[in-house]
């Protein structure tokens, strides 16, 4: 371990810089405008905000998944003592610390519980033996409490990983690395539990009569695809803006691409594992969920996911060259990000039991774009006061010079 590799990286390369931060600041307004427009369209949709709230939930869970993925990735990098990843780790740390804006964006879900979740209606629970059986877990106060707990835990964890790592930028203390490594194992356990139950609560409970124990892993696999797709895009974007030119090399893109490829396959494995058992068992209380998602036009989306989230990117990312050309990798990253969004769309939106309309699609897109703007603005705010690489991490030199053989 050689500490202190600051010399190689000039300051303007590893900070966001005032102009860029200011430009990101304008995104707050843009995001707020898009979300307001979506709300107007949601009101015009005239279904008691059903579509709007479901779409909101879909988009919140999408952006939460990106930060959750980052929150998973960072402790894994610490635990495996990953030398290669140090140069891109700060970007993931910033994403993982972005739960402030996500917590605010989650408020409408809490306000719309009655519209979103059938079990929030006491009458429905009373008349349904299954719902009343689940009532001790699926009830409004406990749901709100859990949501607050999850978001609070993730916020703390994200801040911890970021702040400690930033501390090292000034102190250069190698003990920080060891401390983060020690904290990472319990952090992963906590994350696995909270994220699994969050997936159960927020998405699976939309159809509360159905359950699948693998659902949390399903959400995790998508989240990892999400974060590993965002990181190359973020790196490439920053490099085109003149940042991180000396820090992030083709080798980092290559490794991110390998992980992205791996999690594309992992997603396929998990999605199919859930499907196969239910398909084979062929029991109505299990198949109802797929029945709804494989009829009324949703089956086309399912096929799009099979092809676009697994088969096509599998061959697209298979070759070494695809992962080593930042442009090609960025294409597949954007592609997979869209697919991850569509995957959540397929999970959430069929619960509305309405066909997709032009107005509905406009709500979906406006919310996605609006939240993207707010997410980016918040991330830029976090990044503005910090270095974009952990510049005194003991393994930074290793990360800067390593080569994939």
């Amino acid at each position, binding site marked *: 371990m050689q500490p202190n590799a600051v010399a190689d990286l000039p300051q303007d390369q590893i900070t966001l810089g005032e102009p860029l931060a200011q430009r990101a600041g304008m995104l707050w307004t843009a995001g707020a405008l898009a979300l307001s427009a979506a709300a107007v369209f949601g009101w015009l949709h005239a279904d008691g905000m059903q579509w709007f709230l479901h779409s909101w939930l879909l988009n919140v869970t999408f952006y939460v998944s990106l930060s959750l993925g980052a929150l998973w990735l960072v402790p894994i990098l610490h635990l495996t003592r990953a030398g290669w990843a140090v140069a891109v780790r700060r970007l993931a740390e910033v994403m993982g610390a972005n739960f402030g804006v996500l917590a605010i964006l989650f408020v409408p879900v809490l306000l719309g519980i009655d519209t979103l979740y059938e079990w929030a209606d006491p009458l429905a629970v009373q008349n349904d033996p299954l719902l009343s059986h689940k009532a001790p877990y699926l009830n409004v106060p406990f749901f709100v409490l859990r949501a607050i707990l999850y978001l609070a835990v993730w916020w703390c964890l994200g801040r911890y990983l970021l702040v400690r790592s930033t501390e090292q930028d000034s102190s250069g203390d190698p003990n920080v690395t060891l401390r983060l490594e020690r904290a990472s194992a319990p952090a992963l356990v906590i994350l696995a539990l909270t994220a699994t139950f969050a997936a159960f609560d927020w998405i699976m409970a939309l159809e509360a009569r159905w359950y699948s124990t693998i659902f949390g892993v399903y959400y995790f696999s998508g989240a990892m695809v999400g974060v590993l797709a965002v990181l190359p895009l973020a790196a490439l974007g920053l490099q085109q803006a003149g940042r991180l030119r000396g820090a992030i090399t083709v080798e980092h893109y290559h490794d991110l691409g390998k992980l992205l490829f791996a999690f594309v396959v992992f997603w396929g494995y998990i999605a199919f594992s859930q*499907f*196969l058992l239910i*398909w084979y068992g062929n029991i109505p209380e299990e198949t109802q969920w797929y029945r709804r998602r494989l009829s009324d036009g949703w089956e086309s989306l399912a096929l799009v996911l099979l092809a676009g989230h697994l088969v096509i990117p599998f061959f697209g990312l298979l*070759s*070494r060259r695809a992962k080593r050309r930042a442009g090609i990798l960025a294409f597949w990253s954007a592609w997979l990000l869209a697919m991850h969004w569509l995957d959540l769309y397929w999970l959430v939106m069929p619960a509305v039991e309405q066909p997709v309309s032009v107005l509905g699609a406009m709500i979906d897109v406006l919310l996605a774009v609006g939240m993207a703007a707010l997410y980016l603005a918040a991330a830029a705010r976090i990044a503005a006061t910090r270095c974009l690489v952990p510049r005194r991490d003991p393994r930074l030199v290793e990360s800067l010079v390593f080569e994939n*053989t």
Partner: protein
Amino acid sequence: MNNHEPTPNTPLPGVRVAGLLAEFDGPEPLRLAAERVRDLGYVHWDVYSPYPVHGIERAMGIRPTVLPWLVLLFGVAGCAAAILMQWWMNARDYPVLVSGKPLWSLPANIPIAFELVILFAAAAAFIGVLGLNRLPQFWHPVFSSPRFRRATTDGFFLGIEAQDPRFHETSTRELLESLGATTVETCFAPATRPGLPAWVRWAGVIGVLVALVPPLWIARARAIRADRPRVHPIQDMDFQPRYVAQGPGPLFADGRAMRPPVPGTIPRSQPPADSLLETGLDNGKPITHFPLPVSQALMVRGKERYEIYCAVCHGLAGDGRGPVAIRALERAEPGWVAPRSLHVDAVRQQPVGQLFQTITRGLNTMPSYAAQLTPEDRWAVVLYIRALQRSQNARLDDIPRDKRALLER
């Protein structure tokens, strides 16, 4: 480290110079030396290090391997083999219908396909690596250097072989020394390429011959007609240590292996004690009254059983529009006889004993429910069917006097 005996510079008789082995101080000098040797155009040479040296492939000028394509090819072949195999086995050669599922269906094929893709790809990678590197290699001239053993602990070596067109014992040695080698030694090999020892060759031949015996034996056994009893290779399966029916056994006082039936056992052919309750027939004719007391509890039980076992086809209202029936109709299942509405006159006029018989024995596509429903439960279901029939053909008189006003409103 230089206290080894001096390397002989003149080959002994029967021995030829096979190459030069140079040792370097560490991975970086080795990498730099490799770059020079590469640039000078040597082809038959290699480097040896205790761990993979980053960037050594480029330093040696090794071109990207074809292995990935091989692995891809075999992966695709594995996928095709798995799907073809399952189609052949399950849909063609030996079709077995499992709980009404399609004989051949893609989702069920995926796990096997997945495994075979991995198996084929991994085997191609493993065998491909060995083959492309010409491994395993049991002997190599560098093994003649005792120093070379340190290539697995702390030695970094570069060896140039004599068969290289640019190899010259003195000038190549000077080159290696100029590249910063700590030592350069000559490796020797027998003048004629050493073949495998004779005993290994014989062992191989005998091994192949022995391995041929079982398949030949099996082939012969399949081709000829035997007059002797078959061979029993798996004795404990063919001759199981067990007691047989009607045979002797030492476990019980009467010396019989089989237990006599429990007192009171009756043969299947003999009518049961309460034949009205258990058959619904009186002298072969269906009975018209319930052979057990009718109660509210029986009705509740009947409703519950009906909704569990009958409603999937007959529908909750008994109109024959249960989900299974609707789906069978949608799919135009061959051989499917749609369930009748229980409210048509033909069914309504059936005596209760006949309804009981239908549940007990089944009718058309409907199987017997005797295994799922006890006789009492079957009567309960009959009772509930009667209630359903009544409800679909109700008159105003059936409604309690004080509730009639509700209907009229």
